[in-house]
């Protein structure tokens, strides 16, 4: 049974790097679920959080293929049990019907989301949490006017002082 693995990689924050890394995913045939990327603790570094579906050895290969890229300074697998893992999703829903509008408000509360934009006919919901939680919310709203979804992909850090970083 394929499993999902989370890999954190510290990369050079400069043009072309994202291309080189994602090209490697494609070339080596990795089954990538999501990639989240943003500036890391230093301006000139970016952190990529990659989730991959596969066997244990696929995750290991991905780490060594990442580390082989010169623009990747460090890569490591995160143990999901020992990591904080979050994803943010913005979900636009059709909310013209008052009944649906109140259902939405209800679900958002249950999922501990927030309504971040409202118009006479639509609403944008923001949800932060695990991938599964966001999947569940999206599935729930599919039947009443799901319009648009934007997700960041999972991003993660190891709990406690242990970390995937480089010394400067």
């Amino acid at each position, binding site marked *: 049974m394929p499993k999902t693995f989370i890999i954190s990689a510290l990369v*050079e924050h400069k043009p*072309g790097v994202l*291309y*080189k890394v994602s*090209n*490697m995913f494609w*070339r080596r045939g990795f089954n990538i679920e999501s990639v989240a990327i943003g500036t890391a603790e230093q301006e000139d570094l970016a952190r990529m959080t990659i989730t991959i579906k596969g066997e244990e*050895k696929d995750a*290991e*290969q991905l780490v*060594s*293929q990442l*580390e*082989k*890229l*010169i*623009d*990747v*300074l*460090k890569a490591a697998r995160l143990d999901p049990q020992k990591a904080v893992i979050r994803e943010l999703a913005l979900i636009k829903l059709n909310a013209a019907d008052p009944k649906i509008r109140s259902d939405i408000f209800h679900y958002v509360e249950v999922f501990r989301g927030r309504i971040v934009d409202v118009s006479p006919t639509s609403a944008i919901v923001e949800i932060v949490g695990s991938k599964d939680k966001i999947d569940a919310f999206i599935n729930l709203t599919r039947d009443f006017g799901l319009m648009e979804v934007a997700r960041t992909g999972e991003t993660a850090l190891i709990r406690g002082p242990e970390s995937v970083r*480089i010394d400067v």
Partner: protein
Amino acid sequence: MSGAKALVESLEREKVEVIFGLPGGAIMPVYDVLLDSKLRHILVRHEQSAAHMADGYARASRKAGVCMATSGPGATNLITGIATAHLDSSPIVAITGQVSTSQIGLDAFQEADMIGIASPVTKYSFQPRRVEDIPVTVKKAFHIASTGRPGPVLIDLPKDVQMDSAEVEFPMKVEVRGYRTDYKPDPGKIGLAADILADSERPLILAGGGVILSNASEELQKVAETILAPVATSLMGKGSIPEDHPLSIGIIGMHGSKEANSLIYEADTLLAVGCRFSDRTTGKLDEFCPTSKVIHIDIDPSEIGKNKCVDLAIISDAKMALEALYRALTKTLTEKKDTAWSRKLKEIKETNAVKAENSGRDLTPPKILKELRRVLPPEAIVTTEVGQNQMWASLYFKVLKPRTFITSGGFGCMGYGFPASIGAKTAVPNVPVVDIAGDGSFMMTENSLATSVTENIPVTVIILNNRMLGMVAQWQRLFYNRRYSAVSLGDVPDFPKLAEAYGAEGLRIGSVEEFSRAVKESLKSEVTTVIDVPIDSEENVLPMVPAGYSLKDVIG
């Protein structure tokens, strides 16, 4: 100083002696500076050959080779040669002109996204956008190309950056963060490997191209002799042990020797060094030495477990690891004189040798290649093209020294051998260099004859001429019911005449004696000689293991 001048001066500081290339609009500032430089420029007739020449130069000399081209079509023409160097871990630095920075992305004249195109087939690619960045870029490029697991590096230089001026500094050293080369063997693991090998009754060594790249042949031989392990090589590892050594069993794999392909199934321990278990080497992977313990030494951590799961992995430079292993082995082991396993090896070699003597016809590739070995000095360099010629060479031409057999192993690139031979000859002008060619492959880069003649770089080309795309024809004969599709080349061109048209020497031979004489003459000649050797077009390279089959399933 201008960017172009900074580039050329950086190359001089890297002790570059020669650049293989062909100019065009986007690299003209650099070519203008080259006129006043000590650097030798060798003009090619197609940029693919420039990359192959740089590659051949690198493999023969242990130094990075340099090739150069203009933007767009010039640069894309280099790509086949860059990819060839990439798969065989050969250190080359390719320099391409690029359109000016203000034009990049606008589909300007002769623009190609070289970083995009080259990234998957280079170890790294640079596009410096400021004159100040050029010296450090060049320094990094040579460092990356020639250390660790070597490979090609691209420097794509926009034309305005070549023309701009700035004050530049030339660094003596560079550091590339994110790039590690300091892989030293873990002493614990070396001890463990030594224990496993000392306990093993039937050890076998598989040596790959990494042994040659790290100049570890001597260490390899010492380890093999200590544990009396037969040494098989991959195609890239050919020459890592002298093939006339009693422990050498030749190549393993699709066109492996009978000795190698059978002994691998009897070994109880496999020590694989600097090899990546490619499909051409292992045959069907699940059935590749299934019962033996596998120890894998490689400098590239991503090769560990990529193809073959192993019992013990040692991430290290091959030379350092083999040195340490030898020391660990000699601590516990006294040199073995004779084992049941070594007697078996001797027996197998003797029976196969007798069989090989008994083939009738005269101008067969095995006979020609054995004669070639007799005629050439041990240090002579042989390059090959791709196809049957390459596999005959690997089976029947015994290589006696590392770096004297140069072939496109990973990429299998037709047209490689001839320009690579010119590159090798440029690196070691006093050593005879011979390209073993097929007619199809030779035609792909035959225009390098012009370069070899005008630049006075004489080599010998031996065309095993079957008037066929022979290897494809062989597959059609064996696996497609003799349905020959698009493999007949006709009896053109007349190769001796073609050679003469370029000002080279050309001859056609009809017997082994004539062949022998022709080769000897060619070694004395001041121009390149093309020797046309007509052979039977139905000849197969045997033994052969069909693609996807286990190495046990040998035909022939």
